[in-house]
Every structure is written in C-alpha cells, then in structure tokens.
C-alpha cells in the first residue's frame, strides 16, 4: 500500500478508536443526526414522487377550465356560456363538466361525484373509487344508497370499481349518469359545474383565456399549466407543517454545529496537546478531526437517505400518514413510483455533511495552533 494512503488509514483508525472511546456521546449524536436526515430525505422523496405523478398524469387534464364566480365564490355556469365560448376563434370544443361533492352522514366521508362526457354508466348504476368501496364496504353488484338534495334515497347499483392502482386519482370518485347526477342535487338543466375548453393551438391558450375573461367578466379561466404548477408547488417549504419540520430539523442541526463549533472539551484539548507533543503535525490533527466529523456525518447521511427511501417507497411514508390524513375519513391508499432527485440529495449533502465537518475542524484548528504544553494545561 502506498505510504501516503497508509498514513490516511492509520489516522482513520485513530479517529474511529477516538470516536469509540466516547461512544455514548457519539452514538447518540449519530442517531439524532441520522433521524434528522431521514426526515428531510423522506420529505424530499415523498414530495418529488407526488410531483412526478402529477406531472405525468395531469398532462391529460382539460386544457382550459372556465369557472363562474359570484361574490368571490365558484358558482354554476350557464350552458349558454359554452355556446358563446365555442364561437371564439381557436376554440375546438367546449364540454360542460358536471361534478360536485357529497358528504356521507353515515360514514362521515366526503366523496367527489362526477359525470363523464363519454362512456357514462347506465342510469341507476355507478362506478366508484377503491377508497369509496373500502369505506362503504361494498363490492361490484351491490346497491349503494345516496341521499338526494330533496332528502329522498337514490339507489344505485355498483357497476364497477376503479382499480387500486388509480387510487391517487379516483379513490373518492363516484362516477354516475347525467340524469342521476341532476336528480341527486336538483341540478338545473341549463347549468354545469364548469366548462372544459379545448384549444386547437397550444400557444393560443392564454389568448383564448384572456378573451373568455374579457367576454365574461364573471368567469375565471384556469389553464392546464396552472393546474400542473399548483402541484409543482404543493408541499412548498413555506407550507405550515413543512416549515415547522424544516425549522425543527434546522434547529437541531444548528445545535449540533454549535456544540462542535463552540469549542472542544478539556479532554479533547488535552488529547490534541499530547498528539502535538509526541510529534503530530497540525495538519495531522486536522486530518484526524476531519475524519471524526466525516465518519459521523457521512454515515448518518447514507443511513438517513437509505432509510428514507425504504420508508417512503416500501412502507408508503408511514410516519407522514397521520399528518396527510388530517380529519379526512377517506384516505387514498397509494404506492408512489420511486423518484430519486440527485440534485436535491446533493444539496442536502452539502447543507448537512460539509457544515458539520467544518464545524468539527475549526475549533480543532484553533486548539492545534497553540503550543502543546498550553493545550495540555488548559
């Protein structure tokens, strides 16, 4: 083995032995460090996977959705708007969307009721999401009772259940025929929830949206790009719970770094003094301290990231579930497709491993530059 490499290995041996000498302190430091990195990496993996899912699936969302606003609230849109919008140059089609929410007083869950514009279920039948089936404990062919707006019961036969693979989109869906939907909510025949507009040229979407807003000042056009961007900004670091998590993790990390940077213990000073007096160079001492910091931080980083990957993609982010469920009764059960964002992991590495290692070296450098006898007496 080359002599230089052998020197590094001896120093690494010494650093490891030194860490083991103060094993209780260093193991607790390592465990806490790993926990912080595990939480941060879990968040990164989870958020990136959701964002990827949104960007790949919602790419087929309506190009433009037109909502009507009254008194600052989303209101039903008259179908005559659809006719006028379809006359705008560049608009290929305008499809009225019928959808709404239904609160189930028995199970306490909220469902999304929806009418597709094609391939509708037969009147009297319904297709439900896997979450609804799980929540209501029903299967294909069973009868489902909903309470209409006029407080009468609407009996629907479960025609099908969306596969569990699509739960991230369809978990709470109840897809029904137009007639059933209108009966359900006493929905006016001349209105829709909103309008899905298709524009021939993608570049003209914003122009068409501007024209719609100009022609109908009481409407709000929402572009597909805006829908996708909403999900790219989901779980934003400024979000309440996330900022608390980041804050706690950052604070814990600052405490680590502060503990290290605020100075060495008397034992550590004495150790440096002894090493210097037996012939160690300042560079050797710094190398020793570098290895001590690196062993803890690099190992914690690798362990934290690997554990986070298993947590999010093999155990469906078990620790985050209570926060994600909130007060909802119906919680979609989905397995995320793994995504590893090397850019974000690199940032995490540079934000955690390097500052800690630097915080280990600086006080050691200060101690190593004083004469050995002074260091030993301090």
């Amino acid at each position, binding site marked *: 083995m080359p002599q230089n490499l052998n020197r590094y290995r001896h120093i690494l041996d010494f650093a490891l032995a030194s860490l083991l000498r103060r094993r209780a302190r260093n193991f607790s430091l390592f465990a806490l460090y790993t926990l912080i990195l595990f939480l941060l990496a879990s968040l990164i993996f989870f958020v990136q996977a959701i964002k990827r*899912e949104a960007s790949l699936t*919602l790419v*087929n969302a309506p190009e433009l959705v037109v909502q009507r606003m009254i008194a600052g609230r989303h209101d039903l849109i008259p179908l005559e708007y659809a006719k006028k919008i379809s006359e705008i140059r560049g608009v290929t089609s305008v499809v009225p969307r019928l959808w709404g929410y239904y609160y189930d007083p028995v199970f306490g869950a909220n469902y999304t009721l929806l009418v597709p514009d094609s391939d509708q279920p037969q009147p009297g039948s319904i297709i439900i999401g896997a979450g609804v089936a799980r929540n209501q404990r029903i299967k294909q062919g069973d009868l489902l009772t909903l309470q209409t707006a006029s407080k009468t019961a609407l009996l629907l036969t479960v025609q099908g259940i969306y596969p569990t693979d699509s739960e991230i989109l369809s978990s709470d869906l109840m897809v029904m025929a137009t007639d059933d939907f209108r009966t359900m909510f006493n929905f006016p025949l001349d209105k829709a929830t*909103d309008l899905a507009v298709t524009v021939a040229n993608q570049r003209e979407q914003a122009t068409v949206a501007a024209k719609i807003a100009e022609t109908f000042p009481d409407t709000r056009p929402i572009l597909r*790009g805006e829908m996708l961007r909403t999900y790219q900004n989901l779980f934003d670091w400024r*979000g*309440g719970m996330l900022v608390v998590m980041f804050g706690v993790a950052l604070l814990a990390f600052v405490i680590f770094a502060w503990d290290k940077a605020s100075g060495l213990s008397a034992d550590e000073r004495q150790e440096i003094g002894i090493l210097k007096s037996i012939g160690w160079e300042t560079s050797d001492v710094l190398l020793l301290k570098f290895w001590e910091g690196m062993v803890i931080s690099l190992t914690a980083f690798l362990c934290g990231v690997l554990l986070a990957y298993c947590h999010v993609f093999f155990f469906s982010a078990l620790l985050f579930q209570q926060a*994600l469920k*909130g007060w909802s009764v119906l919680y979609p059960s989905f397995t995320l497709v793994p995504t590893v964002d090397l850019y974000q992991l690199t940032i995490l590495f540079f934000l955690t491993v390097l500052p800690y290692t630097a915080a280990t070296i600086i006080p050691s450098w200060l101690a190593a530059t004083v004469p050995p006898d002074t260091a030993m007496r301090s």
Partner: protein
Amino acid sequence: MREFNSMTKSYFKHLPAMRLSTLYISFTIAAVVLSLLMVIHASYRQTAAQRKIQERADLVANLKLTDLCLFTEARYTRHPAMSDSFAPFQDYPGALEHFPSGSLVSPPMRNYATKP
C-alpha cells in the same frame, strides 16, 4: 496502539481481527453501493410503472380530472387547482384554516389571473 487493539478485540471479538478502518471503509462502500442500487431501483420501477401511469393519464383524459386525490377533508385540498387562494378562509370573515392538510397545500399558482 495497545488501546486501539484492545478496543478492536472488545468491540469486534466475534469477527476475525480486522482494522477499524477496514470495517468502516467496507461499511461505507456497502452503503454507497446500496445508494446506487436505490437509484437503479427507482429507475427500474419508473420503467415498470410506465403502463400504469399511462392508464392513469388515460383516466384523467376520460373523466376530465384536474386534480390528484390526496386529501379529501376539504374541497380546497381535494381540488387545489380549482380553488381560490382565499378558499380556506372564506367560510366567514376572519375564519381560520382548521384542516391539517391545508398547511401542506400551497395556494393555486395562477399565471394568468383575472380573479384571485
């Protein structure tokens, strides 16, 4: 050195005599290999899931969906892309957000905004 040897013996007595650095380097290499396997696994799963993702994208197209079903507790967290930025607070003047998922969902990002 004597101390180091005795420590090696006491901590790793079930293993053949091995330098601490050898153990550490082996562990680190194993962890780095696992990390690389993690990247490969993610890439493999992405390729394997392409058909399912396409099916989900088709479902979005067929039903004209606009949102993922992540939180069902409030309408503005069920359909964040369709909601207003002030939706959590519109129930009555001065209303406070009280759904946990409301703190995870950012307000919709409107590029072209004629209304809030």
